[in-house]
C-alpha cells in the first residue's frame, strides 16, 4: 500500500512554520519537529507514525524510499529528521541514508529488527545519527530531536568559525529563520542558496553576510582550489596550510578542516571501491548533468583523481580545462539540462543555478576548450557513437534504470558494460556512480564524477557531501554525488562540457565514441552517453539520467579527457541509457572526440536521441554504476593509466570496462559508507 503520507502526513509541508523560528530552541521544542518516516512494513509504519504523533512531532510517512527521497527533494527544508528502515524492497536503507546525507544533509535514524553488530556498524559508517532496534519504543522516539539539535549546532559552529563571527552571531538566527532545515541541511541550503544567489558562489567567501547560513558553500571553484592545494601539499597536509595556499578570503581553517575531512573520506572510499571506479566516477560524476556545471566538476574530480594518484596532473588539468570549457557549454546546456534535471527534481533548480554559476566560473577560461572540439565529433560521432556506444554503453548502461536504482543500475550497467566495456567502464563507472545516485537523486550526472571528485562537487550542489561521494563512485548510489561534482568536475571530466549541444546526452551517440576514448579523460562522458543510449532499452528507469548526462555533457565538454570521460559518461550514461545507443557512441565517441563529446556532441546526440532525458538519467545512473563497477575491476591504475592521453584513457577505460564489467554487476552502493559521516 502506498501510504506515502496519505494519512498522516501531518503536514509535513506545513512544518515550515513550526520550526523556523530562528531560535527554535524554545519551549516548544521539540514539538513540531518535522519527521519523515520510511518503512516498507505498513504495520510498523502505522505504529511509528502514531508514536511520533504522540511525541507531538509532525509526521510524514512513506513506505518507499523513493517516495521519501522525492518528498525530501521537493521540500528540502521541510523536514528536520528522517527515520528509515534498513531493509526495504526498492532501495537499501543505507543507500537512502547516503543520498540524504549528500543531498540534504539531514540527520537520519536507521531502524531495524536486525540488531546484529555489523548492521549497526554499517549504519554508523554510513552516517546514521542513530540506530534503533525494532520494535521501537516510544521512549526512544521521544529523544530523536537531540540529533537535530546536535547537527544544527555543529553546523553553526562551523560557520561561526569560518571567519564571519559577527555574522555568525546573527546568522544562526537567520539561518534558522530561513529554514530550520537549512541549517541542518547543508545541502539544501547550499542548493537553494545557489539558486538564489548566483553570485553566491563567488561571493560566498567574501560576503558571508548575505548568506543566511553561516555556512561556507563549497562551490566547484572553491573545491577546485582546495583540491589543487591538497594536491600540492599532499593529502596528509594540515588544514592550515591548505588554507594559506588557497588564500581565499573569508574561509576559515575550520571550513577547510571539515572539508578536508570529508575529502579524505571520499578518497578513502574511492580507494576502497577501487580506484578505477572512483576515478571514473569522479569523472563521470563531474559530468553530472544536474550540475550543469559539470565542467567544473570534472575539473574537480580530476583533481581528486589526481590526488588519488589516479590521474596524472596533466590529465586533471585537461579535464579541468575541459570541465571549464564545459562551463561555457553549460550555459547552453543549463537550459537543456535544467529541463532534464528537473526531472530529477533533485537539486535541479539548484543546479541550474549552480550551473549558471558554474559556467561563469568555468567559463572563464577554457570554456571554449572543448567547444570546438566536440563539434567535429558531433555529427559523425553521433552516428558512430551510437553504434559504438555499445561498449560505452556498457559502462554507462550499467546505470540501472532509475527505478530501483540500486539494483537496477547494475544490470543496466552490466549491459552497457558488456558492450562498451572498454570505454565505458571508465565513463560508466563514473556515470554509474553518478547515475546510481543520480537517477534517483537526479544528481546523476554528478554522482559519477563526483565520486571521484565528489569533494569537488560539493559546492555545486551545495552538498559538500559530494566529496564524500568519491567513495560513492564506487557504489552507484553515489550518483547524487555526481551532481555535486558536476560542478566541479566540469573542468575535469567533461571536456565535453563546453559544448552546449553536448549537454544533451543525445550527443551521446557522438559521445560514445568519444566517450570511449574520451572517457578516459576527454570526453569523459562519451562513453557514458553511449551507454545510455543503449540503455534506452532500459529506459524505464529514469530518463532523468539523461538530464544528468546532458548536463554533464554540456559542461564537460572541456577537453580534459578525464573529465570528458566522466562527464561524457555520465552524460552519456544518462542519455545513453535510455537508448543504449550510447553504447555504440560511447565507444566511438570516446575515442574520437575527446572534446567532441563535450557539449556539442552531447547536445546533438541528445536531441537526436531524445534519449537524453532518459538516458541522462539512466546514463548517469548507469554510467556511474558501471563505472564504479568497472573501476573496481580494473585496478585503479587502469582507469587512469599514466598515459592519460585521451586515447590512452580510452583504452584504459575500455580495458577496464571489460574487466569491470564483470565485477560491476555487483556494484551496489555499499561502497559508500563514508558519505554521510557527519563532519
Amino acid at each position, binding site marked *: 500500500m502506498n501510504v506515502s503520507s496519505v494519512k498522516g502526513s501531518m503536514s509535513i509541508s506545513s512544518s515550515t512554520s513550526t520550526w523556523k523560528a530562528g531560535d527554535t530552541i524554545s519551549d516548544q521544542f521539540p514539538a513540531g519537529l518535522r519527521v519523515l518516516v520510511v518503512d516498507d*512494513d*505498513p*504495520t*510498523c509504519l*502505522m*505504529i511509528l507514525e*502514531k*508514536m511520533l504523533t*504522540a511525541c507531538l512531532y509532525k509526521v510524514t510517512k512513506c513506505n518507499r524510499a523513493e517516495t521519501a527521497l522525492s518528498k525530501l527533494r521537493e521540500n528540502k527544508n521541510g523536514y528536520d529528521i528522517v527515520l528509515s*528502515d534498513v*531493509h526495504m524492497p526498492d532501495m537499501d536503507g543505507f543507500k537512502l541514508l547516503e543520498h540524504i546525507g549528500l543531498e540534504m544533509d539531514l540527520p537520519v535514524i536507521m531502524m*531495524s*529488527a*536486525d540488531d546484529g553488530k555489523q548492521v549497526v556498524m554499517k549504519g554508523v559508517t554510513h552516517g546514521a545519527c542513530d540506530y534503533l532496534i*525494532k*520494535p*521501537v*519504543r*516510544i521512549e526512544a522516539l521521544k529523544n530523536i530531536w537531540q540529533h537535530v539539535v546536535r547537527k544544527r549546532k555543529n553546523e553553526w559552529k562551523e560557520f561561526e568559525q569560518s571567519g564571519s563571527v559577527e555574522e555568525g552571531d546573527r546568522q544562526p538566527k537567520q539561518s534558522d529563520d530561513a529554514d530550520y532545515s537549512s541549517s541542518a541541511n547543508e545541502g539544501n541550503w547550499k542548493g537553494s542558496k545557489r539558486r538564489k544567489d548566483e553570485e553566491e558562489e563567488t561571493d560566498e567567501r567574501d560576503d558571508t553576510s548575505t548568506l543566511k547560513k553561516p555556512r561556507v558553500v563549497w562551490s566547484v571553484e572553491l573545491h577546485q582550489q582546495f583540491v589543487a592545494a591538497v594536491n600540492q601539499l599532499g593529502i596528509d597536509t594540515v588544514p592550515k596550510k591548505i588554507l594559506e595556499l588557497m588564500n581565499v578570503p573569508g574561509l576559515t581553517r575550520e571550513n577547510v578542516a571539515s572539508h578536508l575531512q570529508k575529502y579524505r573520506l571520499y578518497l578513502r572510499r574511492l580507494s576502497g571501491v577501487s580506484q578505477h571506479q572512483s576515478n571514473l566516477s569522479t569523472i563521470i560524476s563531474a559530468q553530472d548533468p544536474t550540475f550543469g556545471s559539470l565542467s567544473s566538476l570534472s575539473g574537480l574530480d580530476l583533481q581528486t583523481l589526481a590526488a588519488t594518484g589516479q590521474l596524472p596532473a596533466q590529465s586533471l588539468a585537461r579535464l579541468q580545462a575541459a570541465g571549464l570549457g564545459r562551463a561555457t557549454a553549460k550555459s547552453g546546456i543549463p537550459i537543456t539540462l535544467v529541463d532534464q534535471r528537473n526531472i530529477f527534481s533533485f537539486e535541479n533548480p539548484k543546479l541550474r543555478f549552480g550551473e549558471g554559476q558554474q559556467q561563469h566560473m568555468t567559463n572563464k577560461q577554457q570554456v571554449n576548450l572543448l567547444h570546438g572540439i566536440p563539434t567535429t565529433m558531433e555529427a559523425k560521432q553521433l552516428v558512430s557513437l551510437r553504434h559504438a556506444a555499445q561498449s560505452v554503453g556498457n559502462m554507462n548502461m550499467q546505470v540501472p534504470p532509475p527505478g530501483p536504482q540500486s539494483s537496477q543500475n547494475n544490470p543496466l550497467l552490466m549491459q552497457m558494460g558488456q558492450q562498451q566495456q572498454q570505454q565505458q567502464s571508465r565513463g560508466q563507472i563514473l556515470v554509474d556512480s553518478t547515475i546510481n545516485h543520480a537517477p534517483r537523486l537526479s544528481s546523476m550526472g554528478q554522482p559519477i564524477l563526483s565520486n571521484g571528485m565528489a569533494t569537488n562537487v560539493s559546492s555545486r550542489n551545495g552538498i559538500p557531501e559530494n566529496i564524500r561521494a568519491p567513495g560513492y563512485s564506487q557504489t552507484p548510489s553515489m550518483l547524487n554525488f555526481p551532481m555535486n561534482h558536476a560542478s566541479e568536475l566540469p573542468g575535469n571530466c567533461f571536456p565535453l562540457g563546453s559544448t552546449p549541444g553536448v549537454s544533451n546526452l543525445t550527443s551521446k551517440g557522438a559521445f560514445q565514441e568519444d566517450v570511449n576514448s574520451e572517457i578516459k579523460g576527454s570526453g569523459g562522458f562519451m562513453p557514458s552517453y553511449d551507454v545510455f543510449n543503449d540503455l534506452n532499452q532500459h529506459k524505464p528507469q529514469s530518463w532523468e539520467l539523461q538530464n544528468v548526462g546532458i548536463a554533464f555533457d554540456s559542461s564537460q565538454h572541456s577537453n580534459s579527457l578525464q573529465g570528458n570521460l566522466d562527464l561524457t559518461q555520465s552524460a552519456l550514461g544518462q542519455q545513453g541509457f535510455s537508448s543504449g545507443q550510447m553504447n555504440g557512441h560511447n565507444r566511438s565517441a570516446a575515442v574520437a572526440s575527446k572534446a567532441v563529446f563535450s557539449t556539442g556532441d552531447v547536445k546533438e546526440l541528445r536531441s537526436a536521441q531524445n534519449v537524453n532525458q532518459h538516458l541522462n538519467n539512466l546514463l548517469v545512473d548507469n554510467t556511474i554504476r558501471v563505472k564504479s563497477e568497472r573501476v573496481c575491476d580494473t585496478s585503479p591504475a587502469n582507469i587512469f593509466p599514466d598515459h592519460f592521453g585521451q586515447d590512452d584513457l580510452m583504452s584504459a577505460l575500455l580495458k577496464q570496462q571489460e574487466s569491470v564489467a564483470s565485477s560491476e554487476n555487483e556494484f551496489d552502493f555499499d561502497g559508500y559508507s563514508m558519505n554521510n559521516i557527519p563532519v
Partner: protein
Amino acid sequence: MESKHVHQQIAAMRQSFFDEEVLDEFFSQLEQLEDQNNPNFVEEVFTMYFRDSTTLLETVEQAMKTISITFAKMDKILHQLKGSSASVGAKKVLNEINKTRQVLEKGNLEGTKAGIWEMRKEYESLKAKLEPYFQLKQANSVPQEK
C-alpha cells in the same frame, strides 16, 4: 451489570494474553497510543499486521516447498515478519520466528520447515485469541482501565 461483566471479561481476556505470554509489553505500548481520537488503533494495527503477515507466512511456506529456495530470501521474509511481530507485541509468534531464523541460518531445511509450522501455529492461535477480544472491545467501547 452486563456491560460491567463484559468489560471484566474483556479485561480478563487481555490479561490472559500477557499471562500466557502471547503478547508482550509492546502491546501495551500500542495501547498507550490509543486515545479518544483513535479508539481502535490497536485493532487497526493488528488488522494490518494480520493481513500482511498472512501473506508473508504463506510466502514462506510456499518457499519451503520450492526446491530452489534461497536462504537469503527466506531470511528476508522472516526478518520482515520479525519486525512487525515485534512491533505489535506478538511475543510467542516472535519467539518462533527467531527460533526458525536461527535454524535457517544453520542451513537446516527440515528444521526450518518445522519452525515455520510452529510459527504458523502460534500465529493462528494469536489471531484466534485476539479477534474475539477486539470484537468484544469494540462492541463495548467504554474507556477501560489499562
